[in-house]
């Protein structure tokens, strides 16, 4: 009876898992199918016979795929470090320095959570136009650096550093910058790691704002490039699938490699 129950549980777990992984496997199978094999057949013919990599090559060559990848890497490489630096610098005084209006400033930064990017599309577009930055890399980068989540999580982390350590450093004459750089930041390393991963995922997947901020294809990040590929008339469905699979590899790899940290940090962030 107990064993039967356990088998039943696993069967259910596997069926549900298939529902979550299935669409990605379907995408992969489409990307690997030879041109002679129908993509849409009834009943579906899911095993590529034989599997071919032609469509991956096609996806890479018909659109400036490599350029999109480089762009995405560039956006990640610039935005994530800036995001960490700005979040940490903003969070440190909010957590550790007593000053007038601390609570007000904290609420100010927290309020950015209630101004989601979707609603800021039009006004940010106008601000960028005013600044002459439309269709530049800077237009994509600037709005993504300040985030309430980063400030909030780092403030929590800095607040847990024992007062005695910081007080001892102050008595020894260390400036706040010194304390920030040599005590607070090293102790916040786990939080910084989590924010790096979350930042990477969100920048790699970014789509809507670049769609508005850019017209020049050569600056497109990968997700926007994929949407563009899906709009190119005559693009083969297999090529589109292959391009999409390629775009998934980095995030899925990072996620699988670090899933324990990601899942536990998500749970931790929710609990506050």
């Amino acid at each position, binding site marked *: 009876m107990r064993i039967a129950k*356990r088998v039943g*549980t696993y069967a259910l*777990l596997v069926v*549900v*898992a298939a529902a*979550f992984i299935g*669409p*990605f496997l*379907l*995408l992969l199978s489409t990307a690997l199918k030879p041109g002679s094999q129908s*993509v*849409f*057949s*009834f*009943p*579906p013919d*899911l095993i590529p016979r034989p599997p071919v990599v032609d469509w991956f090559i096609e996806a890479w060559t018909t659109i400036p795929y490599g350029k999109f990848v480089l762009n995405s890497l560039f956006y990640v490489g610039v935005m994530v470090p800036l995001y960490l630096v700005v979040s940490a*610098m*903003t969070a440190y*005084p909010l957590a550790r*320095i007593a*000053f007038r209006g601390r609570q007000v*400033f904290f609420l100010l*930064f927290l309020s*950015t959570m*209630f101004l989601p990017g*979707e609603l*800021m*599309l*039009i*006004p940010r*577009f106008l*601000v960028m136009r005013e600044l002459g930055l439309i269709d530049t890399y800077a237009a994509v980068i*600037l*709005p993504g*650096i*300040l985030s309430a989540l980063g*400030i909030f999580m780092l403030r929590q982390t800095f607040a847990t550093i024992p007062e005695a350590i910081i007080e001892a450093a102050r008595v020894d004459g260390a*400036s706040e910058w010194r304390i920030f750089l040599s005590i607070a930041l090293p102790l916040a390393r786990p939080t910084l790691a989590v924010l790096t991963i979350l930042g990477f995922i969100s920048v790699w997947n970014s*789509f809507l704002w670049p769609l*508005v901020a850019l017209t020049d294809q050569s600056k497109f990040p990968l*997700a926007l490039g*994929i*949407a563009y590929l*899906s709009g190119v008339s005559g693009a083969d*469905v297999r090529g589109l*699938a292959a391009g*999409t699979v390629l*775009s998934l590899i980095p*995030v*899925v790899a990072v*996620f*699988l490699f670090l*899933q*324990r940290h*990601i*899942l536990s940090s*998500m*749970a931790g962030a*929710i609990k506050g």
Partner: protein
Amino acid sequence: MARGGAVREGPRRVVGQRALTPYLFMLPGLALFAAMFAWPAFISLQMSVSSYRIVTPVTFVGLRNFLQLANDPQFHHAVTNTFIFMGLFLPWAVVLPLLLALLVNRRLPGIHAFRVAYYLPVVTSMVAVAVAWRYLLSREGVLNWLLSLVGLGPIDFLLDTGWALPALATVEGWKSMGLFMIIYLAGLQGVPKEQLEAATMDGANAVRRLWHVTLPALLPYISVTLTLGMLEATRSFESIYVLTRGGPEDSTLTLGYYIWSTAFERYEIGYASAAGLVLWALMILLAMLNQRLTRQQGV
């Protein structure tokens, strides 16, 4: 050295420098806040009472945009669609993830791998997810094949005015279920074990334990998923952009897509800004309403 210098210049100056330090730390953050949040928010208000189409100068029109919205059938349609979409999406955010969390909240070998699998769509891009689901939802797709096995279909999910919106809600719900599952998993850690055991001793079955012990303990988390789910639903855009472009016949035209297309396809910036403010007000209202509801239940 530094301290010696400070003493010579008098304590006042030291205080002055110290007092400036927190603001210097926050300088980059404050600059970005001003440029990327405060300024745009101000412009948003200004545009909503202006007529502006990029090629024409900005002219003040008072509340004309809002009056026009009130009489714009397409806008009404977008608002209605947004609420329908929310209704279709919320079960995927509030109910199904709870069942998922209950399923994986047990000590079994390999259970972590299943949590990872259920969370996977959360980290992938909506564009990639939409492309994958396009194959599933097509007339000759796997879903229609499954339907045919039970003698139903075929249904053109994305081309049928009655099916397109539920199909999109399914795609969005499927993608974000894992995130809501994690929220519930965090909440399940806090369900008092003693109470569950006591209930079991009293002969309560699994359903009664869920209803009388687990659910009450999870109420704050249900409030979180409800709020996040509503916000997520009002923001839906990318799946619509890739899969239906608001069609067929505006059946998947939601507020988010309406605003985007009004601003960046029809270039009616002022008018779209007014619609954006309506969406904003709607989101704040929903968040407040939700707080009220959960307060009343004693959370």
